[in-house]
């Protein structure tokens, strides 16, 4: 342990007056941090194993535990931060690529927090959402460019297949394998109750969840895990995953220890083998090839389901989006660089990709300029943290948003960022039965429904404040936003005025 030993980043503080040695923390810590010392009758803990997931803190009946930064620091150095030094120690010791989970935690600017929302005062009346109907129903899909009429002049509904949502919020793709069976069930049931959709992620769809098909978006990724005809037809829409905000340009990586039981069966890959999906779709080497995959999927599902193309927000995203809008896809999903992941190389997660706010604004602007904004709907994600982010995203031009990390938090996740270990103490990003059972699907579903219901109310409150009573009037309505602490360049990209104007 010599050269690369470094003092744990966090340590557990146990209040001796409060601790009654009930050993709940010991039983509930899958990382084996806590233990009972028979001799002294006291609880002891090994901070080095702690991932700061707060399971013990949450369950301690006498609130005797808290987790604090250990305060141990190398000589302070704003260039060589503690983290960079530790990463070198780890790599000097392992020689391997550092893996980590969830979204980029670094101190890049978060544009959501620099955008402010409008409210009516005199010029137009604000609307009281408790008295007037407030409409958040959203249709995602291609909008017709021309009206068609039949022989006796009646309008022919030439509308491509749409996704109808009660709320412009969908659950982002998280594969069965990265997260547990119970987590998937919660997302599916909540989506069904709320009237929105959850995304299977690149792990295929467990046969038990086919019954939630009409609220499911089935993902087709480069690895084609679990993709077969029934799978494509089971969902309400098909999403081609080109990229993911946390790891643009590379494939997915599910550690072998998570490929067990019916996960390998659902993914149609052998037990225990690492599920590495290749970087590119090997049938899409240029934007033109996307057109073929889109239509082969439409062909396979009799043109009854909208096709979504999910890309990571990277440089030149507007041009990419424009290509996608012309590929026959019905919806484009853009995943910002803060988006989460079950496992991704730390370096890529923390340095590759651009903020979703800028990407979204740029794409919406470009499609409007090219007059093809109606070709596709835009879903943005990575990461939406609250309902204000949702309103800002829609005002910047999104039709709807994907939330994934927020959903995990609602299920109990405490963002300890160690999903790749498969040891999730909250029963979400794990396949160990004794941990999976920690997520009661009734409770999880209820929590997701509560969160979305709460966000729904908040969105209608904010809309009402702006005098808007239907979500369509908020979409792309940049007049409702103002920037603060942003450069003119950033304001221009976002297409919003500065606060005070």
């Amino acid at each position, binding site marked *: 342990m010599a050269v690369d030993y470094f003092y744990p980043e966090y340590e557990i503080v146990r209040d001796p007056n409060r601790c009654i040695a009930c050993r709940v923390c010991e039983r509930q810590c899958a990382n084996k941090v806590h233990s009972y010392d028979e001799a002294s009758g006291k609880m002891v803990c090994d901070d080095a194993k702690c991932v700061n997931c707060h399971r013990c803190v949450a369950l301690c009946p006498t609130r005797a535990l808290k987790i604090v930064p250990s305060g141990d620091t190398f000589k302070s150095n704003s260039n060589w931060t503690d983290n960079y030094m530790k990463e070198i120690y780890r790599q000097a010791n392992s020689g391997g690529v550092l893996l980590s989970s969830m979204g980029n935690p670094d101190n890049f600017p978060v544009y959501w927090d620099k955008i402010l929302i409008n409210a009516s005062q005199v010029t137009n*009346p604000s609307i009281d959402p408790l008295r007037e109907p407030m*409409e958040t129903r959203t249709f995602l899909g291609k*909008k017709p460019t021309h*009206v068609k009429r039949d022989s006796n002049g009646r309008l022919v509904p030439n509308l491509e297949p749409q996704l109808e949502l009660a709320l412009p919020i969908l659950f982002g793709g998280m594969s069965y394998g990265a997260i547990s069976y119970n987590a998937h069930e919660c997302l599916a049931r909540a989506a069904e109750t709320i009237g929105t959709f959850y995304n299977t992620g690149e792990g295929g769809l467990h046969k038990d969840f086919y019954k939630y098909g009409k609220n499911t978006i089935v993902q087709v990724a480069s690895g084609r895990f679990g993709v077969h005809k029934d799978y494509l037809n089971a969902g309400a829409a098909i999403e081609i995953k080109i990229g993911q905000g946390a790891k643009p340009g590379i494939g997915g990586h599910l550690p072998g220890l998570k490929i067990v039981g019916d996960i390998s069966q659902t993914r149609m890959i052998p037990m225990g083998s690492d599920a590495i999906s290749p970087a590119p779709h090997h049938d899409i080497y240029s934007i033109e090839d996307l057109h073929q995959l889109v239509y082969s999927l439409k062909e396979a599902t009799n043109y009854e389901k909208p096709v979504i193309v999910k890309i990571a927000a990277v440089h030149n995203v507007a041009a990419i989006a424009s290509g996608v809008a012309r590929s026959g896809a019905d919806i484009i999903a853009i995943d910002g660089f803060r988006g989460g992941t079950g496992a991704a190389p730390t370096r890529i997660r923390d340095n590759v990709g651009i903020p979703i706010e800028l990407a979204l604004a740029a794409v919406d602007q470009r499609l409007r300029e090219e007059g093809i904004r109606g070709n596709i709907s835009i879903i943005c994600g990575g990461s939406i943290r609250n309902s204000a982010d949702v309103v800002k995203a829609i005002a910047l031009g999104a039709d709807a948003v994907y939330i994934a990390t927020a959903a995990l938090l609602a299920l109990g996740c405490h963002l300890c960022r160690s999903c790749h270990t498969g040891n999730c103490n909250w029963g979400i990003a794990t396949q160990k039965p004794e941990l999976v059972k920690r997520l009661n699907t009734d409770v999880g579903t209820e929590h997701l429904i509560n969160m979305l219901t709460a966000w729904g109310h908040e969105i209608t409150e904010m809309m009402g404040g702006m005098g808007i009573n*239907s979500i369509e009037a908020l*979409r792309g309505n940049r007049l409702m936003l103002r920037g603060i602490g942003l450069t003119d360049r950033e304001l221009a990209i976002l297409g919003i005025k500065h606060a005070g104007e």
Partner: protein
Amino acid sequence: MTDTEVITYIVDFLVRKQGLSLTEMSNVIAAPFWSTISRKEPAERERLSYLRNAFASLLITGPFSILLGFEGGLLALNDRLKLRSMVVGEKGDMVYIASEEAAIRVIEPNVERIWSPRGGEPVIVTLDHLHK
């Protein structure tokens, strides 16, 4: 650009460019609520849903009360919440439209019919000679 100009461009796009009827145009800019649509007959429900979905961004949620002149007649329309007032009066083959009932009665004290159209419900008046 004033609100009036914006609305005029919207109507022009919908009626002239897209070829929608005046009623269909009204069903876009003052689209009924989804709850109202869902109570309609299937055919009507499909028609209104189609219009509201296809031209979603042209829905005007701010309150308005407009008079639109077109070759051969007049259209009067309130926003779907009817936050603005509008009254229509008739006497013989004369039609009077104003924000307030009092204005009509000043012009025509013996007006025969007078009513206030519901939000989003267009009132279309055409000149007689066109119909013969």
